[in-house]
Each structure stands twice: as C-alpha cells, then as structure tokens.
C-alpha cells in the first residue's frame, strides 16, 4: 500500500488546497482534535486503565489538564512540546509505535490548546436532542421532504447546488430496487410514464411498501447484521435449522413492526408477558452465531465464544460499537471497560446450552418447535391418544388390582426365570471367542474392535451369580467359573442388536459391579447412545465421585431428563446396581437401585422434545465400559449384565440382588404377570411413540430461555474461558457506565430490561445507528461512513443535524420503518440525478455531500434476482427451508471438507427462488454471490464492499444461471414481439428499466445479425447454447434465432446500465 497511499495523499492535497490551516478558524474538538488524540494517542494514554503510560490519560479532561495540557499555552503544554519535538527520544508518538502526526495535525493541536483546549463529549454519546430545528435554506421550492433542508443548507453554504431531478424511469428503477430488490416490470414502467397525476410518485411508493417483496429486500441487510446463515460454520459446518428466523425478519418488515419492538423481540421476546410464538422465535437472533462440533472441543471454551459473539453482535448491530476489544482489556478508544464488557456479557450468559453442537438433527437447546398447523393438529391428536391410553392403563390396573387381591396367596414365585422381558443377559464368565461375536465384541471407541479386557475371578460377592442358563454368552460344555470384566476406561464390550432405548418404552439395566477406583470425572458404566463427544444422545449411566447418574435425552443439557443419586455407592465392594425407566418422559421415571433398594436421587434435568435416540453417525449399540472419546469405567469390574424391556419392580431387583425369594407384590403382579395390564402398558408405549414421532416431524430452532437463576459471570483475563475467577472478578448485569442513559430503575435486570434501556427515546446510539443503516439502503453509504463503529475511532457524520433529525423523527413516529423509507424515497435529495459533473467528482468523488443521487453497483442478490425477474424465471414463493441454486464445479461443499454434507442442487421451480432463500453455507458460500461481495455471515457485518473485479465478468458471462436467464428472456422477447428491434427493446427495458438509445440499438442489432449469421452455420452450437440450464427452451423457435438473441440478451445483462443503480 505504501506507494498508493502516497499517491492518494498527493491527490488529496491537490483537491483540497484550502485545507491548509487557517489560524483564525476555530478548532472543533469533536471534529478536529479528538480523531487525532484517539487515533494516535489513546493506545497508551486512553481509556485502557491497565495500559496507561506515564500515568497520563488524554481522554479525561481533568487528568489531561493536570500538567500535560495548559489551556492557552501550547509551549507550556507537555503534550504539544512532545508532539512537536524533533528529538527522537522525546517525540510523541514514540518511534516504535510506528505512528506519527502530520504537521497539520500538530498545528491543529497547537491551535486547540491556544484556543483554550476545550473538551466535548464524543458526538455519538451525546443524548439525542429532543428536537432538531430545520435549517434555513434559500431554495425552499427544492425541498420536498423536511429532511431535504439539511443537505441543501450544506450545499448552499458551500455555494453549490443540488443536481437536477433524475428522469422518471431512473427514479422508478431506483426506488423499485431499493424497496423490493427487484426491477420494475415493463408494464410498471409504462404505467408510471403515463401517470401524470400529482400522486404518481406516492402511488408507486405505496405499492412497493405494501408488496410482500418489501420485507425480502429489507431483510437482507439485517440478516448480514444478525449473521444469519444456514450452516453452523467451523470445521464440519453442518446445516442448521435457523431459516424460520429469516422468515420472521421478512414478516416483521412487511408488517412494519416498530423498530423498538423489532429489537425487543429479538433481544428478549421470551421474557415478554405470555410471549407469542413469533416473539420467542425472534430471540433466535442471539443463537445465530457459529457453533463448533470439532472432536475434542472444550465445551466451556466454546460456550464463552458463543456468549461473546452475542455481545459483539448486540454491540455492532444495535449500538454501533465495537465491543471486541473490551473482551481482553479495557477498550483502547471508547469508554468501555473490561468490567463493562462482562457486565453486558452477563445478560446473555444464562441459557442452558452446552456450547457446542453435534449433528444437524440435534438442535442446540434451549429450542422451540415450530409446527405447521397440520403438525399441531396431528400432535394434539397424538396427545389425545396418549391420554386415552393412560386412562385405559389406569383402568387395567384397577381391574388387575382386584384380580390380584382375589388370588393374592395363590402363587409366589422364586426363580429368576420368572422375571419376564429379559432382552439379554451376559455373564462374562469365559474368554471372548468367535462363537460369541454375534452377541458382543471387545470394543473401544463405541463400536471399534480391540483386544479383550482381562477377566478376573469374582470374590467376596454376596450378589448371586447370573443363572448360567440365561447367559447369552454361556458355554454349554463347560462348568463356568465366575469371572468379571476388568475395565481400563478405554475398552469394554459392545453388544449387537439391542434396540435403541428411547423415551416412550420402559427398560431396565441391571449390573453386578465393583468400583475399584473412585474418580472425580464422570465415567461411563454403560450406554445406548449415538453421537460424539460434542453431544451423545440416547441413554447413559455414569458414576462420578461414587454417585450414580443417568441421562436420557437428545441434547444435553436442555433436552434431557436426568437424575443423580445423593449418596455414593460403596467403594471397592461388589454390589448390584440397576437403572430403570418407565417410559413417562419424566425425570421421576428414571430410577436407580442399589442391591434392590431404591436410591435417593436429585433431578438434574427434566425436559424432553422429540426422539432421544435419533439416528446419527457413531454409536447405536448397547455398550458396557467405554464410549467414543469419553471417559470409560476405568478400574470397574463388571460381573453380570442384564437388559430388560420393562421397568423392573423393587421386588424383582431385590430378588436379583439378594437371592431372596421373589416377593409377589401388587407392583410385580401388574408389571410382570397380569396380561391385561401388560397389554395396556404396551398400548400406552405405542401411543407415546406416536406422540414423539408427531414431534419429530417439526422444525426446531434454538432460541433464548434463561435458566431460573442467572449463571455467574466473571471478568475473564485476556478473554480466556479458563481464566481464574474470584469474588473480585464477579460481575452482575449492568450496562456500560459511560455510554447511554442509566439502566431504567424499574426495569428487570435481564435481557428485557436491556431492551428497554436500548430503546429509550433519549438513548444516544440506537436510533442514530438504525437510521444510518436504513439510509445506506438508499444511498449506498450511511451518513456515518462507519456504520459498524460510532465510537471515537469511527467517522463523523457528514450531516450531523440530519442524522439527529432523522433519528428523532424516527422515534417520534413510533420507530416506523416504512414511514422512514417513504420519506427518503420521496425526498428531493433522493430524486436527484446521479450524473456527476467534473467539478463535483473532484471535490466529492463519493458523494458525501449528497449533491447528486445515489449510484452504485447492485448487490449480489439483486443482480441474480434481476436476471430471474427480467426473464420471468423468478419463482416468487416466500419463506421455507433454503434452496440450492446452480453451483459450478464438483461438489464445492465437500471438495475440501469430507465432513460436510453434500451439495444437492434443487430441482424445478426451487432453482429460481429469490437469492434471499439460497442456502448460506458459511465455510463454502455460493461462489457467484461471493464474487459480488456478499458476506460469509460468520460474524456480524453491517457494511458490504462493492468491488469491481474480473471474476464478476466471468460469473455474468459464464454462470449457467445467467446464461439460462438470458435465453429465457430471449425466448419471451421472441414470443411477444415480431421484429428484432422490438425484441431488443423488450430485453433492454426488462433489464435496464429504459429503452435503448440509437447507438445502443444499432450496436445490439449488429451483434444480433452477426450472431444469427454464425449460428445459422453452426446449428449444433446453437443447440448447445440454448440447452443450458434445467428449464426447457421450448421448441417453437429456431435454435439459431434463440441462440443469437440469447447472446444479445446476455450482452445487455452485462452492461453497466443493468447492474448499476444510477
């Protein structure tokens, strides 16, 4: 950059000869001085209290004026002496900072000190004025909207004039793109040209504001800010299920949800009173950050990343502030301390999440289901069925109880084989050999084969041995010894063909075991799960510090039921433990027994949605002693293992544990003996399964829901998740002390309170940031050129009063977005021609003065949608899961990422949806969109580049999407018009919004003739060209005619007149 910068600086000085210091001109602190101090001095003499050099802070007036700045006396001010010094050792900024001040900047500081060294609050932190007077202007007749007075006043003060009004077609194309993202149709163009009434412009605007495409267009910028995407990002980058949020954003804009509520719903919709489905859905805003599922990820590390991303997105999208710096240390430039950062962090820190995700099927919790009306109905029906089955079961019990009373003493059982519903029993009493391999195999990493663990004799065990005749792994020919698996934590056994345990069906696992090493880490005794260390789903039994716990669920922690014993089991002693489940989907349906006695437990989690054991890769068998990438039962001895397809009763478990005769209790009778009750129980399980499957069909999306008591939040040194914490580092929910108003006294200390704080009518940032971003929608750039940063290092607004007026007006109007848009597009400022004069280009190359209308390249989405709309290929369907348009090359998703799902191109109409609905894969975004500067949506972005590159030419010339659209446009033109001229005009109007002039007409006609000539002699080439794309070219037209006009249409598509808004 070195050369270019120098050259550009030269240009600036050529352009701005008047900028050489004028001693009489008053220095404005915010405009002239602060940018210098902030940019060159604050790194060492700014708000970062830990890094202050020489104990000097220049951001605080009082501190600065202790000795460093003496108002009125530059030569007596250390600051000036040091920056003006020629001595390398004294000069500031120091040489090794690689920063320096220009002579003009030094002079500015000198004059500022001379003039009294006044400090002012940073402009963006000053409260929004209650009213902003309109400036006096001379050319009153030019003003169409109050806002016009501001740019006009600026221009008049400079002796400049606004540009003439743009031709009608230009305004129509501009406003149609800006409000709908689509071009005006030839019919709309004609209608507008013919409408000479006073209301013509207003009518167009009303039509556009009320069209459903308005929300689609407005959503794009917010989705960039909200970092909405259809995949999780990071490593394997699997697809997520966030698209209902995207549709909500479209709906919110279309229904003109006031912006303060738009923010409130997203920040805290779940905390509103009786929140609606949309209000809860909107909180997905806080869950759109990337998520990792890399093997070995440390959960807390990534959970902290998630919360940090919420804070950064809130900071950038809502406040226009960069919070990132303050994660590791006090902000270098803005008055945001590290404590402020983590106090804000505390608002977003309290949901029951793991920090990572495992697979697409397992939606991170907390989440909500979004059933369609049909699905809701089906679920209600399934719920009814469950109720009926429950009632029938209760009835069956009542009847059976009577029967039981009658024949109470008739029978008493005593043998284990009278415990029905045994699925498998394993004795492990002989070494593993081939004949056993259909039953189980010695395993590591869940299902992998490995060498068997040693078998050791069982001694000192009072628990009766398994009846050898029941053991699936028995040896018919030998007298069995009593042996046990000696587990090492890595290896165990994996059984084959035991059906997955899930939430609707009761089951029991009974193990005779001995824990020889007590571990403080949760160690897996047995499980029937799938997934990886980023989240196992299904059922598992584990031990930690001697306490047993059991989990059943799809996603830990928020979508699970779990209980843990209060007391540890005996250490290094043989015992029998049993885990039973009754199929109720409730935590109290999970029970743990020690030697037949129920253990007292506490509930850890108690919420289930959908299937627990949903099929994903890894796992899927009943395993003892180990799990893929998990801590196994190191030092555990396992004698016998049994699995039952029923929740065993206490009587049965006592019998198994002690060998005492099986007591025929009522409970046992109902569960194990009475056929009617057992049938009713089976029916109930069926009904419950149907209910779960009705849920399974529903879309699920992560949202916000706070835990009952806030999770502790701490200042984390260097932003590290494992930084030491103490009472000193503890923070509570608080807003930054020096930014914005105080936290409203009567507001709750939660995200809802935060939303109230941020939408207060005197908040200095929220409305300014919002109107600035909206403004950029129409003018290409905001009034503040750094929409991502309203802090001290951000740019000053070009029109500060206009920004404030717009912000105040926006609030007064009830944060009415549509009204704002209407006022802008009907303004004289917006209606100016964008043709720029040489003089204007020189003094204001990028139109910061608003002395002309906006002109810039259309966005990636608009260009693709324009091609689809002009060619009538566009499928206007709204909402729904993302679609996959054409993608070049092989499968770009998987070419460097074998963990990614494959790219499956959509078929039929779905190929032609608006680009808003195209799948957004964070690590492999659509290349034709990226060429036109879409963001990857990995993090919050509020400004896109608008580059101009050869890749863009290659896309528009060679991408099948654009070739097909050109052909379709040609086909329509041929179909509707008879002459070449009319056909070319049709295509030209459809793409550029105007008729071609004589030169254009001639050039295109010449091209058409040359192409026609070529394709007439190359029929096969013509056929190839018109066959591109999935849609059919039809067979009414001669291939050479269609091919020739296709080339012409594509030429028009590539013109500046098409892809630029002017």
């Amino acid at each position, binding site marked *: 950059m*070195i*050369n270019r910068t120098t*050259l*550009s600086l030269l240009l*600036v000085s050529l352009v*701005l000869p*008047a900028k050489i210091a004028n001693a009489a001109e008053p220095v404005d602190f915010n405009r002239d001085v602060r940018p210098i101090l902030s940019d060159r001095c604050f790194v060492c003499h700014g708000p970062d209290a830990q890094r202050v050099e020489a104990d000097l802070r220049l951001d605080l007036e009082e501190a600065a004026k202790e000795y460093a700045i003496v108002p009125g006396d530059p030569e007596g001010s250390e600051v000036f002496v040091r920056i003006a010094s020629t001595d390398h050792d004294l000069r500031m900024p120091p040489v090794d900072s690689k920063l320096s001040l220009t002579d003009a900047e030094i002079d500015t500081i000198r004059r500022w000190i001379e003039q009294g060294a006044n400090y002012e609050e940073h402009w963006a932190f*000053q409260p929004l004025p209650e009213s902003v007077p309109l400036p006096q202007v001379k050319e009153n007749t030019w003003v169409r909207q109050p806002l016009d007075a501001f740019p006009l006043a*600026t221009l008049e*003060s400079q002796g400049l004039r606004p540009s003439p009004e743009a031709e009608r077609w230009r305004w129509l194309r501009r406003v149609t793109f800006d409000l709908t993202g689509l071009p005006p149709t030839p019919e709309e163009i004609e209608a507008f040209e013919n409408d000479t009434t006073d209301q013509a412009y207003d009518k167009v605007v009303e039509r556009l504001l009320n069209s459903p495409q308005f929300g689609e267009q407005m959503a794009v910028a917010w989705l960039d800010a909200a970092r909405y995407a259809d995949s999780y*990002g*990071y*490593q394997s980058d699997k697809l997520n299920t966030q698209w209902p949020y995207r549709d909500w954003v479209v709906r919110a804009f279309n229904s003109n949800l006031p912006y303060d509520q738009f923010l409130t719903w997203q920040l805290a919709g779940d905390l509103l009173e009786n929140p609606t489905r949309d209000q809860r859905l909107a909180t997905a805003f806080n869950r759109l950050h990337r998520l990792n599922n890399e*093997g*070995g*990820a*440390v959960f807390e590390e990534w959970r902290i990343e998630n919360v940090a991303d919420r804070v950064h997105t809130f900071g950038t999208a809502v406040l226009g502030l*960069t919070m990132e*710096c303050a994660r590791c240390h006090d902000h270098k430039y803005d008055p945001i301390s590290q404590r402020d950062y983590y106090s804000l962090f505390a608002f977003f820190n309290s949901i029951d999440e793991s920090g990572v995700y495992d697979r697409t099927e397992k939606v991170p919790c907390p989440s909500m289901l979004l059933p369609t009306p049909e699905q809701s109905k089906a679920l209600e029906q399934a719920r009814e069925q469950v109720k009926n089955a429950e009632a029938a079961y209760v009835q069956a019990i009542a009847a059976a109880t009577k029967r039981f009373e009658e024949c109470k003493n008739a029978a008493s059982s005593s043998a284990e084989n009278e415990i029905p519903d045994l699925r498998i029993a394993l004795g492990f009493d002989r070494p593993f050999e081939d004949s056993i391999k259909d039953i189980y195999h010695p395993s590591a990493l869940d299902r992998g084969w490995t060498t068997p663990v040693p078998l050791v004799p069982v001694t000192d065990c009072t628990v009766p041995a398994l009846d050898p005749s029941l053991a699936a792994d028995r040896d018919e020919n030998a007298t069995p010894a009593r042996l046990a698996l000696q587990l*090492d934590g*890595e290896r165990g056994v994996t059984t084959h063909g035991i059906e997955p345990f899930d939430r609707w069906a009761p089951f029991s696992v009974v193990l005779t075991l001995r824990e020889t090493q007590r571990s403080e880490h949760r160690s897996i005794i047995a499980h029937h799960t799938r997934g990886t*260390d980023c989240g196992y789903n299904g059922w598992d039994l584990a031990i930690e510090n001697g306490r047993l716990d059991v989990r059943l669920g799809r996603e830990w922690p928020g979508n699970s039921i779990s209980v843990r014993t209060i007391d540890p089991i005996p250490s290094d002693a043989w015992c029998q433990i049993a885990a039973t489940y009754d199929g109720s989907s409730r935590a109290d349906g999970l029970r743990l027994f020690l030697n037949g006695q129920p253990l007292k437990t506490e509930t850890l989690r108690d919420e289930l949605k959908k299937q627990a054991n949903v099929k994903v890769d890894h796992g899927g068998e009943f395993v003892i002693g180990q799990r893929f*990438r998990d801590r196994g039962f190191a030092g555990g001895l396992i004698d016998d293992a049994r699995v039952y397809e029923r929740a065993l009763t206490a009587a049965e478990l006592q019998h198994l544990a002690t060998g005492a005769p099986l007591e025929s209790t009522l409970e046992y009778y109902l569960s194990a003996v009475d056929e009617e009750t057992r049938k009713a129980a089976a029916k109930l399980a069926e009904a419950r399964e149907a209910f779960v499957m009705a849920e399974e069909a529903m879309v699920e999306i992560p949202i916000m829901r706070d835990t009952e008591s806030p999770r502790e939040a701490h200042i984390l040194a260097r932003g590290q998740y*494992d930084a030491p914490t103490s009472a000193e580092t503890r923070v509570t929910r608080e807003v930054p002390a020096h930014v914005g108003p105080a936290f409203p006294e009567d507001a709750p200390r939660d995200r809802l309170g935060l939303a109230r704080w941020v939408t207060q009518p005197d908040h200095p940032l929220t409305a300014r940031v919002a109107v600035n971003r909206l403004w950029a929608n129409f003018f290409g750039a905001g009034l503040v050129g*750094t929409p991502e940063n309203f*802090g001290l*290092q951000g740019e000053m607004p*070009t029109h500060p009063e206009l920004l404030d007026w717009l912000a105040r007006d926006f609030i007064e109007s009830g944060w009415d977005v549509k009204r704002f848009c209407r006022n802008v597009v009907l303004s004289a400022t917006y209606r100016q021609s964008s*043709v720029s004069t040489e003089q204007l280009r020189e003094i204001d190359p990028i139109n*910061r*003065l608003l002395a002309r209308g906006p002109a810039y390249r259309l966005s990636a989405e608009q260009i693709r949608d324009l091609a689809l709309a002009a060619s009538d290929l566009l499928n206007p369907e709204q909402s729904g899961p993302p679609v996959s348009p054409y993608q*070049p*090359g092989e499968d770009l998703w998987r070419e*460097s990422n*074998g963990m990614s799902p494959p790219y499956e191109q959509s078929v039929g109409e779905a190929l032609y949806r608006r680009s808003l609905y195209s799948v957004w894969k964070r*690590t492999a*975004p659509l*290349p034709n969109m990226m*060429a036109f500067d879409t963001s*990857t949506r990995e993090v919050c972005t509020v400004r896109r*580049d608008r*580059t*101009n*590159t*050869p*890749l863009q*030419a*290659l896309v528009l*010339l060679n991408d099948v999407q654009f070739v097909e659209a050109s052909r379709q446009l040609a086909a329509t033109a041929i179909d509707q018009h008879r002459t070449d001229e009319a056909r070319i005009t049709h295509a030209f109007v459809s793409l550029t919004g105007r008729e071609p002039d004589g030169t254009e007409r001639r050039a295109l006609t010449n*091209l058409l003739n040359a192409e026609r000539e070529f394709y007439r002699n190359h029929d096969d080439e013509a*056929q*190839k*060209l018109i066959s*591109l794309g999935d849609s059919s070219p039809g067979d009414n037209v001669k291939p050479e005619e269609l091919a020739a006009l296709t080339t012409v249409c*594509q*030429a028009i598509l590539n*013109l*500046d*007149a098409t892809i630029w808004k*002017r």
Partner: protein
Amino acid sequence: MKQIMSPTIEQCVSSNRRTFLKANAAGLGTMALSQLLSGTASASTHFQPKAKRIIYLFQSGGPAQQDLFDHKPLLREMNGQDLPPEIRGEQRLTGMSANQSSLPLAGSHFKFSRHGQSGAWLSELLPYHRDIVDDVCFIKSMHTEAINHDPAITMFQTGSQIAGRPSLGAWLSYGLGSENADLPAFVVLVTAGQGDQPLYARLWGSGFLDSKHQGVRLRAGEDPVLYLSNPNGVSASRRRAQLDTIRDLNQHQFNKEFDPEIESRIAQYEMAFRMQTSVPSVTDLSDEPESTFKLYGDDARQPGTFAANCLLARRLAERNVRFIQLYHQGWDQHSNLPRGIRGQAKETDQASAALIKDLKQRGLLEDTLVIWGGEFGRTSYSQGVLTNDNYGRDHHPRCFTTWMAGGGIKPGITYGATDEFGYNVVENGVHVHDFNATILHLLGIDHERLTYKYQGRRFRLTDVEGHILHDILA
C-alpha cells in the same frame, strides 16, 4: 447539548479521508483498478525484500514431528510408560484424550538418521528430503495456542483464531499488489480427494480487506477457475464479438454518466478475457519435458495430486504469482498413525523435495520463499491404546517442526529445540506471530507497518506480537 456544527466541504471530505482514499484507489483507472489482476508492478516495500514470492506447502491436520523431523530416542526407551506429570505441566488436553486413563509415551516406529553436510535428522519416511536438507532451515520450536484444527489453522493463515481477518496471501496482495497482469496475485491449490480435516474459503479469504485480495482457487479439472470457460455453444470468436459490444456500450454509457467505475469495469472485462487464456496456459502441463515428471514423480501427471500442485506452483512462480498457497490434508493421525503417516509421507516427500531442487536449478529459489508445515504438532504419548505395532497421537500445540527454504533463509540449519520428550520447547521458541512477522520481513514488509484500519483499530497480520527471527535469515 452543544450543537454539532455542519462540516464544510473540506472537513467533510477530510474527516472521511479513509473512505475517500479507498474510493480513489479503486477509481484511479487502470493503475489501481484491481490488485487482483493489476498489471503494474508498481508496489514498493518498506525495505529491500529478499523474497519476491512465496510457495506455502501447508500440511493440514498437524504432522507428527516425532515421526518425521524431531528425533526423540527417549520415547522409544520409555515406550509405554506414562508421560511424567512434570513434563505435561498444566498443558490442556483436547476432549479426545482428556478422558484417557493413562498417557503412555509412544516412541516413533520409524528409523532416524542424519543427512547432508548439516547433519539434519530425518526419519526414513522422508528419503527425498535427504537431498534438500542443506537448502532448508528446520524450525523445531514452533508453538501456538489453539488445540483444535479450525482455530489453529485459522491462526496460522490469518494471525487470529477468530474468523474474519485477512489471510496472509490477502495481506500480501493488499500490501504489494501483483506482478502479473494476467494472473491473480494469490493462488490456492488443494490436493484433491484427501478428505480429513476440512479447509475453508476463510483460510484464503480477504477478511475485512476488499474481496479482490482473496485467494483464487485453481482446481484440477475442466474449469481451473470457477466460471472460467465459455458456456457450451459459445466460441472464443463469438465471445469476443459479444465483449466488443459490451465494451462499446459501456463506453457509451460512460460518455453519458462520467463515472470512472464504468471505465474500471471495461478493463475488468478485458482482464477476464485474458485470464481465459492465461490460466489454462499455466495448468496445461503438456509443455513439460519427461525429466520434470521424473523429478516430481509420476503423480505429477495426475491433476490434483500434491505432486501436480507442486509442479503448478513452480509454473506459477515462474510467472511471478506473488503467493502460491498449497494445502495437503490428511495429517490428523489420532489413531493408526504408523500406517497413516506412511501414506502421507509418500504423497508429499518426493514432490516437496523436487520443488526445492527445481526452483534451485532454475535460479528461482533465491527469491522464492518455500514453507512446509502444519497448524500444530502431535503428542508424544499415544492417543488410544498403545500396542506393539500401533499408536495414535493427539493434537499438540506446544511444539512442532516446520521448515523454510529459499528467499533469504539461511540454508542448512536447524533452529530451536524441544526437550527429550518432544513435549516442550527448550530453546528459541517460535510463535505463529514470529513466524508470520519473519515471512513479511523477507518480502520487504515491516509487519508492524502493514496495517489496515477497521472498526477503528489498526489491524495487523501479527496482532500486537511478532518478533523477526533474525537468526535464520541469510
């Protein structure tokens, strides 16, 4: 409240100087049209560069230093014994081996011997490397913070674990521009069909720099650059006629609108047209003599292999492409390391060495910096069960080996050292930022002065760190 004054034109423009400069830089007509294909080698540097270009052979997944370069006989002697806790210290483990009940040391199964005048250690896995040890500087003491692939590789390529920063190649394109009018300044080549740890566009992305600085990926197959070929049924002559019409009409539009962006667009279309010829001329290997394939190995005939990409890298270097980034995946041997690493070494050894020899014989090694290495190392203990013929190794950010050669690097030396367990750096640790600072230095750039202001902060490839490794400079 104090009224904010309306700015004058001058103030308005100067207070937005950065934007102004940016806009000007983009609008200066052909000179600064686009770094992507800027035809003017006008870039200047902070000081005299030693290297003009880089070929970076990124070995993704984390190659095991103990089995390739860093000879640790003690691991064989103590094979199976637990890693002493005092060696591990407070080192964190990934969730994959954190749950292991023991951490048994695993000696390499591969024989080591010394080679060249420098006497550098190499394992038997790298026979072709023996010929280049005297051209190479081995850094045995690399270290990083990240322990998972995504953040670790993002750190290496962008100087930050956090997504959204420009990659090394993008910084170079931004800082130095291109020296070739018809090819991108930053080209990416990935070995095809390797699988294993994913790679992402982010690694060669432009972050907050203009997207024109992002790497352009050359692929094996018909379309080396996406969208490069004309659609079926469009011949080169037809395309030319169409482009001529587009040019004329854009010129016509410029005469009405006076927007310099239109002129810029006209030039972009011409460059696109030139690329359609220049890119295939690089990827078409038919002009290479038989001796080339002997040197790089027969794999080089197969497009998309590491060998073919090394050869392509040399061809791109000949055409003065600034930054040529290769990726070879597959080094993530958590289990079955002996078998896995053998295959990896076979795929990369000959071609890596061939590239050095080839550049040298063409006089290109002098001003081409070649880098070979991954995002972290691997543990000296076995992940999973250690048996007589098998072991695995987990991620290890604390020490690992990379090598550099050519463009200003002192040849035939080894820099830095690890302890006898191959677990900790004991001498001359080299952090990723030091490494990147040194790379920029070799290209003539002061890493503290190549900055870009974004969100109010001056960002650098090396964040606020980075020391140049003067000891390894020639």
